[in-house]
């Protein structure tokens, strides 16, 4: 739409903007007039758009008349200035940003679930399940996408055997390990694989808490018989996070009966938990011993090599260009578990797409600063004064002193500037903390530093560095 405006009109508009800036001052111009976009001139009416409704009302009531007067001075035929909402003019918006990030979350072969209100292609990751009893499976969690290393190879091998053999190799298969190490991934992978290889077998996967809620609901609706029938007619029962059954007696009892009935019928059971059967608390001994009857496989904490391998594999699947240094940095820094590691990678990639800049070590650190910073807290003015004084090698007392020598005045201005940037204190309050100065002194300091930053890039970098040090 913009290109319908011809160059002479563009030039008029530029002159008018220059006038407005001179008349209203930098701040008001930046807030209210800079965001205006010239759309058309038609029949003596100038149309300008603004991004928000609120802005439209403000500009209309405060500046529209002045703009009109200025315009008439340029061109006599102009009779009116109309301020309209951008969204009313351009119903299509932001498509490019959204498209570019699509790759961050796979959308292949998915069916939307839920209330159906959602846009189908939009990215529901979960496949609607054929079996009402079963929780949906995540299509990303397959054996192909599971990266094997020393710490998980035994569990992975056991999972594959259960998934691929026609008869039950061991019962139950009990997988355990700390959070976020891939138990759920292996569970889903088993379920996918069995459904692929043996589609006639009825596989039910659900979390222990869902089992519990189903059971409580059955109790409430006096529907225990059909609950029992449903669960006892499955071929493969997979229950994730069984530690959540502990302590809940009636649920535990029902789980125990279901378990026994399925084992008696030679049906496969796969369980996961955060601890070994003997370490699970709040379980009856008879239940505990049953859980350890089959094969117990643990997943250990990841090694650096495995973490790096996981990141490389995931980066490749996402089709994202990530420097090896960044992957090494993540593998080195985020050691807690795989879920958080992958979450960090997702974040970096999505952020890079959002801002349209490539991923670098610096940008990764910036994006993840809340995760990497172990104990962050609110920055205080006192802290800012202390760090700035150290940085410029002046005495802390000079922050409050009346001395005006450049060597102390400039650092003081930097500290005031940072106090305004990093805290919510009012300007008079900031002034008071700097030896009882007036708020106009603070405003002057802020303006001065902003000017210097605009003209001196070395100084500007120095301030950014200081800011990072204070925030770190």
């Amino acid at each position, binding site marked *: 739409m913009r290109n319908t405006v011809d160059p002479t009109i563009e030039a008029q508009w530029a002159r008018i903007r220059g006038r407005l800036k001179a008349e209203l001052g930098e*701040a008001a111009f*930046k*807030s209210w007039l800079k965001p205006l976009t010239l759309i058309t001139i038609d029949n003596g009416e100038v149309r300008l758009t603004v*991004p*928000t*409704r*609120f*802005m439209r009302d*403000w500009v209309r009531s405060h500046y529209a008349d002045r703009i009109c007067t200025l315009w008439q001075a340029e061109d006599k035929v102009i009779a009116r200035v109309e301020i309209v909402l951008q969204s009313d003019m351009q119903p299509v918006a932001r498509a490019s940003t*959204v498209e570019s*990030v699509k790759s*961050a*979350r796979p959308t292949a072969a998915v069916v*939307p*679930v*839920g*209330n159906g*209100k*959602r*846009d189908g292609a*939009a*990215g*529901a*990751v*979960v496949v609607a399940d054929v079996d009402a009893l079963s929780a*949906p499976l995540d299509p990303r969690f397959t054996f192909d996408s599971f990266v094997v290393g020393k710490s998980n190879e035994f569990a992975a091998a056991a999972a594959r055997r259960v998934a691929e053999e026609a008869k039950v190799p061991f019962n139950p298969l009990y997988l355990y390990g700390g*959070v*976020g190490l891939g138990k759920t991934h292996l569970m889903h992978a088993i379920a996918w694989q069995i459904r692929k290889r043996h589609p006639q077998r009825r596989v039910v996967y659900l*979390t222990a808490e*869902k089992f519990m*809620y189903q059971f*409580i609901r059955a109790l409430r609706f006096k529907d225990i018989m059909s609950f029992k029938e449903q669960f006892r007619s499955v071929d493969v029962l997979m229950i994730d*996070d069984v530690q959540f059954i502990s302590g809940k007696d009636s649920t535990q009892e029902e789980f125990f009966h279901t378990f026994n009935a399925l084992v008696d019928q030679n049906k496969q059971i796969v369980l996961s938990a*955060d601890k070994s059967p003997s370490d699970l608390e709040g379980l009856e001994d008879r239940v505990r011993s049953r859980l350890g009857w089959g094969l117990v496989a643990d997943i250990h904490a990841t090694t650096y090599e495995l973490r790096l391998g996981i990141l490389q594999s995931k980066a490749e699947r996402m089709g994202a260009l990530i420097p090896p240094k960044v992957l090494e940095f993540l593998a080195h820094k985020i050691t*807690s*578990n795989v*879920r*958080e590691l*992958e*979450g960090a990678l*997702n*974040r970096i*990639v*999505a*952020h890079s797409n*959002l*801002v349209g800049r490539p991923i670098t070590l610096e940008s990764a650190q910036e994006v993840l600063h*809340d*995760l990497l910073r172990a104990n*962050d807290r609110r920055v205080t003015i006192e802290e800012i004064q202390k760090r700035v004084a150290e940085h410029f090698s002046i005495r802390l007392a000079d922050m409050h002193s009346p001395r005006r020598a450049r060597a102390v005045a400039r650092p003081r201005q930097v500290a005031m500037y940072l106090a*305004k*940037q990093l805290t*919510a*204190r*009012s*300007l*008079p*309050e900031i002034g*008071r903390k700097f030896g009882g100065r*007036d708020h106009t002194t603070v405003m002057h300091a802020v303006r001065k530093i902003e000017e210097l930053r605009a003209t001196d890039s070395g100084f500007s970098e120095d301030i950014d560095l200081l800011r990072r040090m204070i925030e770190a």
Partner: protein
Amino acid sequence: MPLALGHRPALGRDDFLVAPSNQAAVAWLDLWPRWPGPGLVIFGPPGCGKTHLAEVWRGRSQAIRLAATARHDRADGDVPSLLGAATALIVEDCDRALDDHRLLHLFNLLTGRGGYVLLTAAAPATRWAVSLPDLRSRLLALPAVEVGPPDDTLLEAVLVKMFADRQLRVAPDLVTYLLSRLERSFAGMGRAVDALDAAALAARRPITIPLAREVLHDDGH
């Protein structure tokens, strides 16, 4: 005596002001539902506009809101029925009090149906009091975006909007006057606008710099 008449702030996307301090958060919300995970954490100081952002998202996602902890005066135990058929959920103030088990179950139910959760707090998730490791790792794996303390452009716009929400017209020079004297947070400005509105009503005077000077007890400092 003037009555404290309630006023409802306008909270639509068009009423939302995008500024450097919140543009990253707005970009993340605009990205939905193509988030790279089943949710998003927005954190930033009180009064930086988190609730407003959450409201904007609620308008698009039809999310329901639940508190981070169960209310004791209600039978809140049945998590699935709390969630109903919702596929989007907002939980605010997660760094205050958090019921681990409740949130974990909500989280799992939502992700199980391809849903999304938006969590807000003053502090990042690393500092929430989460003792359940299962929940902790899920929260830390979510993308998180910080909303900074509001910058001048945003403060000015929001201050004017606060007056506008009350059908009050104020002159630009009053706005400039207030901006250089008020606490630079939305919460602080909200309190000041309340006080000014009440004082103007009580004294039957328009809101002007002399009135503001009296209300703020501004003695030149």
